[in-house]
């Protein structure tokens, strides 16, 4: 069996049956779904999945064409070449940022994470009324000065009028 990996994204107007139709098309081609994520962003359907198997981009696009036929869903398929970057072995953190909505909050905060060599591994933002909320999971390098990183993030957050909290991600080993 081929080990080719493909990324499929489906974006657009939400309705029942999108996942069923997408996965049926992939199953017909014998593709195996590996990691996937799906959510609603302000009510809009957003799904990304990685599938593996002996197919090609054109065949996958043909199989999923009926999904996009209504004009309210965008489907994109592309091959994934590079393997994942191995984890650096640092420490895992959860960053919460919240405050009044305005432009530039995410950018101001994640710039500081990047400057510290931090890698964001998961990110959710929500706008609820006037409240803007960002929750990010991130890895900091082994040699990171965590107190300095936290200060830089807090200072950047204050400049855009929001508060930031950085906490060690806790995993209970059972």
């Amino acid at each position, binding site marked *: 069996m081929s080990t080719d990996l493909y990324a499929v994204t489906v974006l657009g107007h939400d309705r029942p049956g999108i996942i069923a139709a997408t996965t049926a098309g992939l199953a017909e081609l014998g593709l195996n779904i590996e990691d996937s994520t799906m959510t609603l962003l302000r009510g809009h359907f957003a799904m990304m999945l990685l599938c593996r198997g002996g197919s090609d981009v054109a065949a996958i696009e043909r199989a999923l064409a009926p999904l996009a036929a209504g004009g309210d869903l965008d489907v994109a398929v592309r091959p994934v070449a590079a393997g994942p970057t191995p984890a650096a072995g640092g420490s895992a953190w*959860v960053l*919460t940022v*919240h*405050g*009044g*909505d305005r432009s530039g909050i995410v950018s101001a905060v994640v710039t500081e994470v990047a400057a510290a060599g931090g890698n964001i591994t*998961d*990110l*959710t933002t*929500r706008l*609820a*009324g*006037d*409240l*803007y*909320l960002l*929750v*990010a*999971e991130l890895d900091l390098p082994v040699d990171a000065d965590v107190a300095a990183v936290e200060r830089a993030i807090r200072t950047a957050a204050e400049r855009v009028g*929001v*508060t930031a*909290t950085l*906490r060690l*991600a*806790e995993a*209970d080993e059972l």
Partner: protein
Amino acid sequence: MNSERVAAWTEAELGVEGRVLDVVRAPDGVLSARGADVDPTSADIVQLAADLVATMRVSPGCVGLAANQVGVGVRMFCVDVVEHPKTRTQHGTFVLCNAEVVESSRNERAREGCMSVPDLTGDVKRAARLTVRGELPGTGEKVEFSTDAFEARALQHEIDHTDGLLFLDRVAGAHAIYPRQTYL
């Protein structure tokens, strides 16, 4: 330990009528700032204690309310988890001033909401065994007591408010935040 004293306390001891106040919502800055320590015997704090209980009573499902949530940046809150199904140990209705956690253990993760964050809920890990100390409004008595389960969670949530923290600051991760369902 003063468990019995806290359990026996009621807002009738305050001797003033509570008024229902408006609850402020995030991103109001009063929710993100640590409150000032209070004199639990002062008249305005006694009145605010009664107001917090009165406001909690008229708010459906409300099991606790901190002074910051009614726009007053001081370290005081009320709690009443008597009716909640997840409650084990409980001390009825009480108000604590200048409260702090003495000891905590046995973390458990559960979904929380907050009147000041009406559109979101989140999974938060909190201690299920807790000892707190604080002062009772009116007499100013210092009390220290232990509790567990849902009352422990409510106390930690309220003490966080007095420190300027929301449950959002403690959510377990990027996928631990949920929009509240709205039914049209």
